[in-house]
């Protein structure tokens, strides 16, 4: 395995009085795709937010490229090369699509490179080109999601944190987005930390996976092996033995509990 680009050790973060993540450690090697799976409320987004500086951890360290970054202001974290695509389409509603994309390149000074990247994301998502002068707030939910991902790409990051990129997208777009994530990882060597509800897709493009339950990591392995586990199959992939759950409403207990 390559050197770790991001190392998280013993991280604890609170939402007010509630401990959202309870002592979590993991590593993301350079140029790899790592995914974190877990049910709603397990604390996946909190991990990403703590890494990118939007939330402050109570305990623990986050090391990026040899530097401790926990508790840093999020804009400084971004300047170090971490681009976070937040959950829920956080676009700038009153700026045009093109201006939104240019904001993605805010930290960059190379106009030529920015222009190239603009063309690149337009080629990924042609719909953005046709809506370039519209206000981002007038885009549909799925289009805003595409915009958010493209905008993060415009920063030409060293590492991307993706929080549910497939949320609310059509099946075709989900496939496309995962292909794009795989491509930027392969072609540009961008390291990816991916949080997804769509475990099927995530496990197929990621190298290594962690499973999170109620703020703790309960399982970790290479994705190839995770795909073989019974619990993963049933609870994250929805693969039932010939539609067992199609008729039954009780659930099997998860074995890691």
């Amino acid at each position, binding site marked *: 395995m390559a050197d770790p680009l991001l190392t998280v050790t013993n991280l604890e973060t*609170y*939402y*007010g*009085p509630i401990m959202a993540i309870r002592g979590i450690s993991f590593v993301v090697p350079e140029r790899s795709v790592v995914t974190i799976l877990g049910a709603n409320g397990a604390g996946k987004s909190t991990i990403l937010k703590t890494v990118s500086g*939007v*939330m*402050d951890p109570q305990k623990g360290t986050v090391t990026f490229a040899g530097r401790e970054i926990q508790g840093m202001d999020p804009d400084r974290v971004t300047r170090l090369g971490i681009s976070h695509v937040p959950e829920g389409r*956080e676009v700038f*509603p*009153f700026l045009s699509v093109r201006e939104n994309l240019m904001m993605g390149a805010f930290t960059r000074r190379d106009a030529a490179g920015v222009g190239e990247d603009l063309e690149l994301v337009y080629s990924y998502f042609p719909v953005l080109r046709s809506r370039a002068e519209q206000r981002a*707030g007038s885009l549909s939910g799925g289009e805003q999601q595409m915009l958010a991902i493209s905008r993060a790409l415009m920063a030409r990051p060293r590492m991307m944190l993706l929080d549910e990129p497939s949320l609310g997208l059509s099946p075709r777009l989900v496939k496309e987005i995962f292909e794009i994530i795989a491509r930027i990882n392969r072609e540009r060597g961008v390291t990816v930390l991916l949080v997804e509800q769509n475990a099927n897709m995530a496990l197929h493009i990621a190298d290594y996976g962690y499973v999170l339950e109620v703020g703790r990591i309960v399982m970790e392995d290479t994705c190839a092996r995770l795909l073989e586990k019974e619990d993963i199959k049933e609870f994250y992939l929805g693969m039932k033995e010939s539609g067992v759950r199609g008729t039954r409403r009780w659930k099997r207990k998860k074995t890691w509990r």
Partner: protein
Amino acid sequence: MRFVFKTSYAQDLEIFRDDVQRNWYVALLVGLLVLPLLIPAYLVDVSLVFIYGLCGISLMVLAGYTGLVSLGHAAFLGIGAYTHVYAIHDLGLPWVVGVALACAVTAAVGVLVGLPALRMTGVYLSIATLAFALIIQEVLTRWERVTGGLKGKPVDKPVVFGIYLGGDAAFYFVCLAFLIGALWLTGNLLRAPTGRAWVAIRDSEIAAQSMGVNLAVYKTSAFAYSAALMGVAGALFAHKIGFLAPDIFTVLLSIQFLLMVVVGGLGSLHGALFGAVFVALLPVAISQARDAVPAWLSALASPLGKDAGAATFLAVDRFVKKPGLEPGLFGLILVLFILFEPLGIYGRWRKIQLYFSTFPLYKRATFRRQKSYMRSERLR
């Protein structure tokens, strides 16, 4: 921590959470009833607390519960005061009718203001109410036949059903009665569908609408109810100050009412009352301090030297007697509250309660503020 064991849905409909809470309020009421015996000199100030309490409830309904921030509530107070005084003096109507008229007229004006305000949000609404208040102030100045214009209008002591209620203690009880009445009525509304609809409008107009809340009706009713309370408060206020002039009902007074709501704690009736106590009694405290502070400081400084005491006294005395100091002090307190206790006095009160009820398990983290991030409110 005390948990209430509920055995019937009807228990959720009561004003008081349980008997313990009710008993505390009964005790408080008894305390207020014997208060005139304890501090007869300060009854006038406490009456003002009650009147401001009415204003606080009024603004709490509008700003705290329905989310419509009005910068012009002093105008409603003025309309109520002038209507009442015009009715009982110029028209010679009975006192009770005067109060009822004040209530009705302000409610009607409230509807008039509420109607154009329906489509406005946020800043626009606040500035529109501000404009309304400035216009009303001008009307009060110019409509001399009714208001007496800049010369003002003296107000007699209240006489209700032929009984003279102008004494400090009598007026105190009149104000207390009105305050309790208003609390009861408002509490009723807030536990009924109307109150729920108001809060829903504050939290998400679009969701409220999709659940069948007619935004126009409920925003207007919030305005009308809030204005009506202000009208009643105005009638009492007229007697409290004994003399009406247009420059009493200024924007600054409106801002003081807002101050009450913020300092008390947004979104609770308790907050409105805490705020009223604070705003009505702060000037009293300040004037007491004005007399006392120079003497204290000179006593502190006197060991430093022979003349240090006297010099300190003079310097401090000159400083505290500066006319511009009091509004600045108000401003400072407001700023400190918003910075350090955004939930207001009531929020602090709840924290203290929680601290003792969970002792020794209280976690500081319970009320720690997370980093929060603003998002445009223009998309409402």
